[in-house]
């Protein structure tokens, strides 16, 4: 496979004209997976971060365990842009399989650190080359060949530290964080980094890229979205977790299990949670629904194929009105698709998941912080609304490391929704499960086990009346379905409101969601700076849409709906939701190639449209 962007016509890179390019470049490291490069790249990322420079890292890895090409891109941006950047300023070419294509795909003037035996310098005259004999560098450190392979990768971090003028102390500090409690691994890696650092002193610096200390990361954290969502679930007080492994969602649950074991087991060894690795996704969601029915805060996490398998159960939970939280860490479909690439491709099918007039609540976290906050809110919303809530995150958010403000401790107490206990029943003398007593379409429920002779009701996916009794009566059926519609409609006001940016005066509206956010912000800046196009930006955070979404469209002549799928799925939901007269204002900008969205793709598309 070629370098991921090789077939995109490269944009002319900003040429260094003698001066340094400080804190504004991107590095791509090309290795093979399973070779330990993930640690090295994290160390590099973290070292830059520790120097106070905004960074982001994108891992482009194959659906495979070991030996296939992997690329990791680190962007340092003094302006704080953290979207993927297509142009590579510095390539670290460690993988013989892809090195040729990787080099040929660069823009003129880019720098290349490479494993000397690859002899890449012959390929093009217009690059800056730094050959390094990595094997020789790590040879003195260990005799184990396997370990050597790993250390080679830490050595390039040292080389880059010297070339970029990174503080070696920060590198060492980052290595320490990377291998906590493993002094031998730490020491060896520090030695490897130092070897690289020392060796690089012999290289003549001929590129302009440098890192200088800033103060833009103080207090911030580095974390991936899956870890953030796991913490969300932890602080939501999740009690039942049923799951089935699938990329890219597995690490969400695996991290959560770690936290639960650490923070939710009492001194007596007893757990306030149950985790079950189910036999498949049907069972996983079935368990979550059974648990939600019985009153637990229950969840599962999966990706597209799992969501498809959950379809029948999703309809049951919608219709029988049972809370459950489902994290969908989206990857590229259709079908098994590209399991290790990112997309926002499950939006439309999940909104209508299951046959027969089913509708669902979706949340769209747009940052790791929102993976956390929505990870908390989803449980409140599911119990409040008595319906499944899907948290639509994606591989880019979930598996890449992001810079973030630390997460806020939840401000509100748990909202356990409308539940009647024994005392309530004593007072009321009974209840009707599906009666709309509060005018919001949400009935009151009881939990199994409630010690009251009037507590029980019969839950079913078949037609039922207000008392939850079986019914085929046409009018009863209609009423019930209308109530469900009302309930979901009312959800608009409970869900996270969209986030607005801009003066509100622009004619041009940009609308996006989820992990597209950084690219959208940067694209907005590009549009203004490069094309004089002023725009407002609305980031949608939930479906059914808040009323503000409509207001935004009303207030703009043209609204570009940018998303990471082929079919313009959120745009489709908007078309169905907005008054028909507003629909012509929507300009879908769907894009899907499995790579995290970059600003240039967005601004180019919009400029082209605007120029028409």
């Amino acid at each position, binding site marked *: 496979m070629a370098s991921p962007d090789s077939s995109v016509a490269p944009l002319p890179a900003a040429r260094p004209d003698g001066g340094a390019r400080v804190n504004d470049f991107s590095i791509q490291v090309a290795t093979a997976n399973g070779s330990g490069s993930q640690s090295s790249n994290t160390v590099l990322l973290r070292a830059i971060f520790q120097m106070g420079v905004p960074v982001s890292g994108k891992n482009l890895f194959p659906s495979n365990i070991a030996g296939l090409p992997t690329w990791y891109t680190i962007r340092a941006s003094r302006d704080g842009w953290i979207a993927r950047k297509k142009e590579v300023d510095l390539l670290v070419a460690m993988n013989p399989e892809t090195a040729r294509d990787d080099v040929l795909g660069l823009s003129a003037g880019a720098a290349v650190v490479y494993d000397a035996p690859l002899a890449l310098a012959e390929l093009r005259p217009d690059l800056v080359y730094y050959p390094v004999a990595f094997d020789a560098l790590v040879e003195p450190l260990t005799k184990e060949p396997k370990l050597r392979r790993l250390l080679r990768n830490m050595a390039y971090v040292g080389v880059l530290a010297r070339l970029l003028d990174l503080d070696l102390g920060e590198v060492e500090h980052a290595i320490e964080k990377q291998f906590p409690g493993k002094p031998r691994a730490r020491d060896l890696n520090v030695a490897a980094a130092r070897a690289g650092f020392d060796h690089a002193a012999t290289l003549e610096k001929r590129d302009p890229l440098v890192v200088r200390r800033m103060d833009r990361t103080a207090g911030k954290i580095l974390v991936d979205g899956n870890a953030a969502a796991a913490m969300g679930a932890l602080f939501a007080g999740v009690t039942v977790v049923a799951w089935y492994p699938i990329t890219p969602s597995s690490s969400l649950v695996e991290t959560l299990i770690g936290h639960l074991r650490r923070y939710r087991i009492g001194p007596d060894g007893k757990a306030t949670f149950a985790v079950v690795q189910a036999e498949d996704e049907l069972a996983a969601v079935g368990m979550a629904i059974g648990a939600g029915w019985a009153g637990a805060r229950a969840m599962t996490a999966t990706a597209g194929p799992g969501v498809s398998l959950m379809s029948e159960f999703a309809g049951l939970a919608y219709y029988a009105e049972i809370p459950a939280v489902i994290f969908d860490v989206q990857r590229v479909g259709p079908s098994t698709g590209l399991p290790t690439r990112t997309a926002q491709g499950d939006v439309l099918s999940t909104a209508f998941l299951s046959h027969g007039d089913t509708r669902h609540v979706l949340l769209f976290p747009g940052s790791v912080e929102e993976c956390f906050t929505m990870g908390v809110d989803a449980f409140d919303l599911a119990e409040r609304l008595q319906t499944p809530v899907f948290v639509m995150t994606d591989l880019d958010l979930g598996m890449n490391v992001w810079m973030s403000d630390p997460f806020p401790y939840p401000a509100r107490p748990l909202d356990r929704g409308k539940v009647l206990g024994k005392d309530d029943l004593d007072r009321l003398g009974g209840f009707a499960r599906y009666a709309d007593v509060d005018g919001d379409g949400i009935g009151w429920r009881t*939990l199994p086990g409630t010690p*009251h002779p009037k507590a029980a009701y019969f839950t079913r996916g078949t037609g039922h009346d207000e008392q939850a009794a079986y019914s085929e009566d046409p009018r009863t059926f209609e009423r019930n379905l209308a109530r469900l519609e009302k309930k979901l409609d009312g959800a608009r006001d409970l869900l996270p409101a969209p986030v607005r940016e801009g003066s509100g005066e622009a004619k041009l509206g940009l609308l996006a969601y989820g992990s597209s956010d950084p690219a959208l912000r940067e694209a907005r800046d590009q549009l203004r700076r490069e094309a004089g196009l002023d725009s407002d930006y609305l980031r949608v955070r939930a479906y059914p849409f808040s009323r503000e979404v409509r207001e935004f469209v009303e207030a703009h002549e043209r609204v570009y709906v940018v998303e990471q799928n082929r079919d313009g799925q959120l745009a489709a939901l908007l078309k169905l939701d907005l008054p028909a007269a507003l629909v012509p204002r929507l300009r879908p900008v769907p894009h899907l190639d499995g790579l995290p969205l970059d600003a240039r793709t967005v601004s180019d598309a919009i400029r082209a449209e605007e120029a028409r």
Partner: protein
Amino acid sequence: MATPATPAAPRTNRLGLSVVEYKGAKSTLCAGCGHNAISERILEAMYEMGVPPERVAKLSGIGCSSKSPAYFMSRSHAFNALHGRMPSVATGAVLANRELLALGVSGDGDTASIGIGQFVHLMRRNLPILYVVENNGVYGLTKGQFSATADLGAKLKTGVQNDLPAIDLCTLAIQLGATFVGRSFSGDKRQLSAMLRAALAHRGTAMLDVVSPCVTFNDHEGSTKSYAYMKEHDVPLHELQFVPAFEDLAVEYDPGTTVDVTMHDGSHLRLRKLEEGYDPRDRGRAMSRLVEAQAGGDVLTGVLFVDAKAPSLVDLLNLVDAPLATLPAEAVRPPREVLDALMDALR
């Protein structure tokens, strides 16, 4: 059931409840359907064991059998879930509230056809549940197609013959690790009642495969799940006696002819052997005897396998004693310091 109540007055159980408190809605199943008889037996067993109806969660899939929980114990919560997916829903419910007494009711189509995957995995996990399969060898609710428990050579009314081997749910359950496996017949009031009561005292998965004729679609000649067939081929392995803990009767028994199993709650299951050499504590032997019987067209009934000591899923997960569902916020949301520590680690 924490504290055994004082011996009950004649018409009430030890909780002081009359049998009426265990009734359900009027059955809409066909008159004569085996499932109706099983509902009766379940209701009686619950009454006799003095199970508080509010503690029971009735769980089922889809089918005539799966509808039947509506026809007993209206005072218990119930969840009539999806076709073949009751096991997962039950698993979630039990984990959410370990105090629930989960009663799963399913059919042979619901369990052995579409639901076999969830069945297999529930058995492995030894979830505390009383799982009753009302086995008529056909899909009743969709009007009489063969299910996967239909016996080789069985005939539908239309003359169509089943040419695939039957899945024997008991053999399967024993193999997979279920800890209480029994087979009975909806028409055998005594055996089924004793078995249900013993199963209610079991902690872990109690799987009962109860032959339950479908009078509308599978009670004809040529059927192997008919009343007539069962009358001829039912081979009880033993006579069952169940002595609940709260009755503590010290009945004499002969260890040579009777197997006595002490259940988790101190009650006793006594099996007076009718077949020499069958030991319901030997997994491998039980399986080979069942395979042999199946090949010969015999329907072995009784408690086929029991292991009253194996840890249940709730034990394995080492859950706190209180139901997870209703733990207070303090117990489930870690304090601010934990978040601070987590954030620090990420800096």
